[in-house]
């Protein structure tokens, strides 16, 4: 069992980045903007995305400098995600960084990396990764839903993936497909006749998912054929931590609004926050959020230094953040009373986000199992200990 005697430092640059992203959020990600985007399911306008990617440099935060990024540790991207999570702005950031860049950085294909990562890091193109079937589960050991066949020098893809984040709008679609050598990663770029993108109706309108049907779609192989499973696993680990950071931000927003409301709303002659039933609810929310946040930053630092503990740490972070957001979004509705149950009030938007992200990138049951396996099944993971860190931290 891994025990840590971590001597944490909390770099002041983390706080600076948080302030910058908070300022962006206040300016560009207000509730009205979010509702408009959510109700029309249009992607984020390109100008706002350019601000996020170019001016704030968020898409390339963990990308090494030689590929056009900032070469920062995962803690930095986590801080940005956490801050953005307080608003529900639909943006290509999660899919582009965690899925597209994450896959390209882990797939061990230098030429694909050099060709595609700089444009993603700069926000010139957005990206995603398709993997799951209709059930939405990411199981890296499972046979993919798409089949790839050789076609001269290239490949052709046939099949369907579901629940693809930003699948309707992403410029670069990475997909895991089955080959004679086993599951492999492929990139589909440019205009793609034969690819039918159907937006799925979503419980959380601020996070779009699509079904992608591939009919003889041309694609290029990324990395070694048959090597997709460890790549997908590593990507999932990273995506789980970043999503957990976002969940912590969402939960924090719910707590903040609940506390404010409990301090002002009076019933029976007292502020409702002076009743212990309400006060203690807020404190329990707070405790869960602080615990989840700590787990996120620990997991992020494990990713930065490529620690062998990264995988269980990511699972812990994702589980705790899901639980914290779950509780905070539900209790916030409760504390707001009837007003919290209206369409006009933003509480339901967070409740929706909490429910949908709980299931994304592994539900708590799956992550419990990852942790249980790390405790009970003595396996050694080769990729964690041998591959070099993919990013360095900002100094």
């Amino acid at each position, binding site marked *: 069992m891994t025990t840590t005697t971590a001597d944490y430092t909390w770099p002041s640059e983390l706080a600076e980045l948080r302030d910058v992203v908070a300022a962006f959020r206040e300016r560009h990600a207000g509730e009205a903007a979010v509702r408009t985007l959510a109700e029309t399911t249009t992607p984020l306008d390109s100008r706002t995305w350019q601000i996020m990617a170019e001016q704030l440099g968020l898409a390339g935060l963990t990308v090494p400098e030689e590929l056009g990024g900032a070469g920062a540790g995962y803690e930095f991207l986590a801080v940005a995600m956490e801050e953005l999570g307080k608003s529900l702005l639909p943006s290509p950031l999660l899919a582009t960084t965690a899925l597209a860049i994450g896959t390209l950085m882990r797939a061990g294909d230098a030429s694909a990396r050099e060709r595609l990562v700089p444009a993603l890091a700069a926000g010139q193109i957005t990206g995603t990764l398709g993997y799951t079937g209709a059930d939405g589960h990411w199981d890296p050991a499972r046979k993919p839903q798409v089949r790839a066949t050789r076609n001269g020098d290239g490949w052709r893809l046939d099949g369907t993936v579901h629940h693809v984040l930003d699948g309707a709008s992403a410029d670069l679609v990475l997909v895991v497909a089955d080959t004679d050598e086993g599951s492999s990663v492929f990139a589909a770029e440019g205009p793609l006749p034969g690819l039918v993108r159907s937006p799925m109706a979503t419980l959380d309108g601020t996070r779009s998912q699509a079904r992608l049907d591939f009919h003889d779609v041309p694609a290029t192989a990324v990395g070694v054929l048959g090597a997709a499973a460890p790549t997908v696993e590593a990507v999932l680990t990273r995506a789980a931590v970043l999503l957990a950071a976002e969940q912590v931000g969402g939960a924090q927003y719910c707590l903040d609004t609940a506390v404010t409301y409990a301090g002002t709303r009076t019933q029976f002659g007292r502020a409702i926050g002076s009743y212990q039933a309400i006060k203690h609810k807020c404190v329990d929310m*707070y405790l869960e959020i602080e*615990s989840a946040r700590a787990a996120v930053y620990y997991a992020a630092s494990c990713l930065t230094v490529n620690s062998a503990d990264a995988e269980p740490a990511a699972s812990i972070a994702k589980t705790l953040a899901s639980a914290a957001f779950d509780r905070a979004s539900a209790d916030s509705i409760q504390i707001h009373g009837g007003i919290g149950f209206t369409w006009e009030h933003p509480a339901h938007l967070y409740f929706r986000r909490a429910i949908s992200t709980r299931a994304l990138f592994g539900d708590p049951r799956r992550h419990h199992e990852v942790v249980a396996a790390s405790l009970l099944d003595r396996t050694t993971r080769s990729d964690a200990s041998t591959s070099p860190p993919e990013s360095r931290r900002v100094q």
Partner: protein
Amino acid sequence: MKVDDERVLSDDGLENRALSFLADRRRRSRTQGALVWGEGDDGAVAIWDDPDPDVERAELDVARTYRRARFDAGLGWLDGPVEHGGAGLSAASQRRFAALEAQFDTPSQAFFKLDRVLTPILLRYADPEIARQHVRGLFRGDVIGCELFSEPGAGSDLASLTTKAVLDGDTWIVDGQKVWTSDAHYADIGLALCRTESQVSGRKGLTAFLVDMRQPGVEVRPLRQITGGSSFNEVFLTGVRVPDSHRIGARGQGWEVAQETLKIERTAIGVGMGRGGAGVANGERLVALVRSLGLENDPIVRQRLAEVVMAFRAAKHLQHVTSARRRAGDNPTASPLLAKLTLSNNLRLASRFVTDLLGPRLAADTGEWGTFAWNQFVLGEPGMHIMAGTDEVVHNMIGEQVLGLPREPRPQS
């Protein structure tokens, strides 16, 4: 973030000195700190120490002898200030030494658990000469401390306490009764909170004193607790004489002194759980228990084990991350309160898990190692929700002091 501090001790040769000290006096434990199922003391899971008094006396002597030798070898307080007998090193050195020490069979130091709680209080509030004497003693094993705060009529509402201290020349005469006092039956000193201003009610009329527990007028009566043993006591104070030089803080500053003490104690409880919960908090013992029962492939057991261990890990990360943020200038009030709450939540989770795992083996002793012994954990766990501020009171404090929620209505006085 750096994730290791292995090299902290080696730089100045301290690691070698520490190892040779340990190797000279103590057997290297066969298990090198790691748990081997069926070996060692399976009762180490007890939350409260409560052996019979003769055994305890003997253990105390052994613990003291070791502690003195350790202090005299310069290893007793690595992160303490040099002028008080510390080695002036970092907290990381201290942790590294503790890790080395864990590889040897060393006597439990649980008798001295207030060393790190009382020291900062004495250094901050006591007469410098008094502080000098006792701080050194706390780390050398010459002095054991206890907290004389609670009274039969004043627990959560500590400010309503009635134990009186009246000034007579330059000596205070203390009369009253304290209760639930952990370790008072072997303590040498007690930090007592007393009412000194009879006209002023509540917090303002309180003052703290350092009471010599060995003097006439101090009577300690052990209380038997839930677990069957006794680690806390009633303490009767009758005409106890305390020189004014043993006043801790100014007259009327007692509330602040007690609150600071409880704050440090809560952090110590939260952080020190690895030992207080006797190796429960890293989950290793629970994993071994699951294996020994052959339940490692049971999907429900796996889920619940993961849940408990996650909670332990989260508590540890919470501690590390909140203290890093505190060093970087973030809100400091919360972390001791969160530490205490996290601990009591986690112990409850672990207790329920163990109870379900063991079933009948917890209800009656089959003689099997590492099973029935958990009764001392399960029975001790409810106390953790009460000591050093009940869960309810800690919730109130976080709600009001950290989140800024409206205060509970107070009675008009």
